[in-house]
């Protein structure tokens, strides 16, 4: 395949890193929104390539991590209902809820299946007509269009045993919430690549216009990220923050209109609960009334015990960028990928998992 090696070229990377070092005079703090970016940055050792003046923080862009414990508890409770099959992205099953996890429920006999997309969950529904198949709909604007498409497909094919627990979240409102919070002073944001393929760059204009923070949308290859950092440093040095796209092969300013239409058709915007942040108004996607027969929230009722958050876990702080994973006392001691306390250690996009897996430089 073309366009993998090209974006991993070490000579170009070295030149870009050199340019960043030459440009950078002010000490700045950048946040990479996406967990995918955190992993790429750690995997390729990008922190070691950029100058000490550039500090990098992980952000809230890990769908599994930001799912509130209460929502996870609800998914677990749904799994224990009779004649229910839960379909979910794989990472979710290992995240500890207040009292259990989906993985634990599976071992206890609940029917929980890992799928790669909501469309696969439809096939599970077709193959199991006697059961109710509930898809745990997590993710940002990247997964929302396919979940919307699955609901439309279920309607079109008259599949009556398919439901979605819609926990989908929107990225611009959480960025605004973090900037309003002002807990971590940021000079620039590495904007999400795949989310922006869907929504474009316009929804981020407020970041530079209202908060004076630079925002450059990046792809996930090392050269993409270095180019993005270069542009962010340039903007901050020049004192001219704006929204830029450093991932033009994927992102258009206006986004993907077809995907946006699908989302608009099926979902409406409402409040959503975020781990570590709380309820953010207008930051979640709810299933519209026209499609409510697919809404697991409406179709099933479960009673939930009070939410218990794990003691000492700082996933909330890590998600807000207020702490780095090693600053959590549990990190790598009590909390490991084998015995995760919080979701950031479980998810393949979690910051704690990235810090644990790739560690720091040894040489």
């Amino acid at each position: 395949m073309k366009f993998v090696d090209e974006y991993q070229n070490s000579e170009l990377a070295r030149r870009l890193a050199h340019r960043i070092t030459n440009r950078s005079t002010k000490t700045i703090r950048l946040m990479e929104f996406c967990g995918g970016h955190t992993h790429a940055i750690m995997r390729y050792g990008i922190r070691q390539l950029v100058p000490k003046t550039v500090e990098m923080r992980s952000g809230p862009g890990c769908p599994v991590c930001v799912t509130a414990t209460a929502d996870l508890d609800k998914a677990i409770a749904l799994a224990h209902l009779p004649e229910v099959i839960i379909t979910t992205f794989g990472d979710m099953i290992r995240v500890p809820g207040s009292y259990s996890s989906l993985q634990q429920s599976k071992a206890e006999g609940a029917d929980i299946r890992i799928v790669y997309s909501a469309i696969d969950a439809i096939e599970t529904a077709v193959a199991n007509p006697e059961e109710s198949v509930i898809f745990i709909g997590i993710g940002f604007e990247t997964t929302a269009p396919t979940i919307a498409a699955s609901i439309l497909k279920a309607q079109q094919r008259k599949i009556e045993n398919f439901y979605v627990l819609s926990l989908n979240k929107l990225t611009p409102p959480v960025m605004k919430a973090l900037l309003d919070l002002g807990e971590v002073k940021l000079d620039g944001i590495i904007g999400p690549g795949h989310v922006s393929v869907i929504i474009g760059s316009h929804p981020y204009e407020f970041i530079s216009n209202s908060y004076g923070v630079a925002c450059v949308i990046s792809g996930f290859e090392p050269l993409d990220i270095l180019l993005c950092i270069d542009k962010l440093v340039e903007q901050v040095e020049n004192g001219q923050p704006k929204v830029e796209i450093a991932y033009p092969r994927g992102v258009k300013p206006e986004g993907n209109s077809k995907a946006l239409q699908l989302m608009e058709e099926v979902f409406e915007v409402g409040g959503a609960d975020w781990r570590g942040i709380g309820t953010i108004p207008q930051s979640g996607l709810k299933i519209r009334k026209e499609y409510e027969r697919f809404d697991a929230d409406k179709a099933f009722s479960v009673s939930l015990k009070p939410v218990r958050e794990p003691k000492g876990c700082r996933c909330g702080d890590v998600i807000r960028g207020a702490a780095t994973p090693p600053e959590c006392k549990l990190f790598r001691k009590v909390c490991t990928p084998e015995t995760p306390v919080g979701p950031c250690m479980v998810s393949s996009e979690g910051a704690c998992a990235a810090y644990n897996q790739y560690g720091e430089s040894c040489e």
Partner: protein
Amino acid sequence: MSDTILLAHGSGGKLSHDLVEKRFLPFLANPALNKLDDSAIFEASGHLAFTTDSYVVNPIFFPGGDIGKLAVCGTVNDLAMSGAKPAYLSLSVIIEEGLSLDELEQIVQSVKKAAEEAEVSIITGDTKVVNRGQADKLFITTSGIGIISPEVDISGANAKAGDKVILSGTIGDHGIAIMSQREGLRFSVPVESDCAPLNKLVSQMLEASSRIHCLRDPTRGGLATTLNEFARQSNVGIVIEEDKIPIMEGVKAACELLGLDPIYVANEGKLVAIVEPSDADKVLAQMKQIGYGREAAIIGEVTAKHPGRVIMKTKLGPSRIVDMLSGELLPRIC
């Protein structure tokens, strides 16, 4: 005769005998097996290596192989990685009722073919049939006995500072082939499993050098996990270079797409060798003579620094820790 496996095929009665005599014996025949006694009797002398493994792969047919080929190659490779010459295998099959006899025959054919290639005999076996839902189509357990020369001393604990790390070919082929088949992911260039018996490759390597310290096939957990096992068992550090690791374009593309790191993806026809530095080039040259080692490469070396740790120099220059695989490999969501 029914064209699917029935519970009665496992009853121990006539259908069971038919199953063995018509579906297994014609393909796997050899003097020890043909007797159908309670045990196979064979001759062996010297040091013996003995291993066992169970195979539950889903799907049972995948690009580049099937569960039958895997069950032979896996056990042959486990023997070969100890420096043993594989000789005899057992084959125990648990079949879910309803499996088609055609599928069973295809799998037994694969067992035959793989055993012929590896020059091993299947000398004893067993079949059981379980109710629908109690197994997933077919599970296989193979055990193997190999003969090992007294001078061969290969162990994960034998790596020494200065040794070279040789990888026999491209990584991640098997894992990506299985994942794409299981999840219906279609790539323009289909990725095939690398499933293969490596005993002949190993015997050529042993001919080239008596100073091969460690050998292992990086199956589940991938290259990263195998190297970590060596580092921990031998209490040494290992440094590898990312751009020396051979990866097929299709695997690379699939990994990028799914957000996976190929060094954690499973292989079924590759080995990692830790070799005395002065013999490394000789071993490498010998490996390249053989089909399964054609793309072999020296990917790094053993160091006295950071014992127990594997460090990789990334393509971009910086280094990072390579840990064992933890949990399952799952594609990214975001």
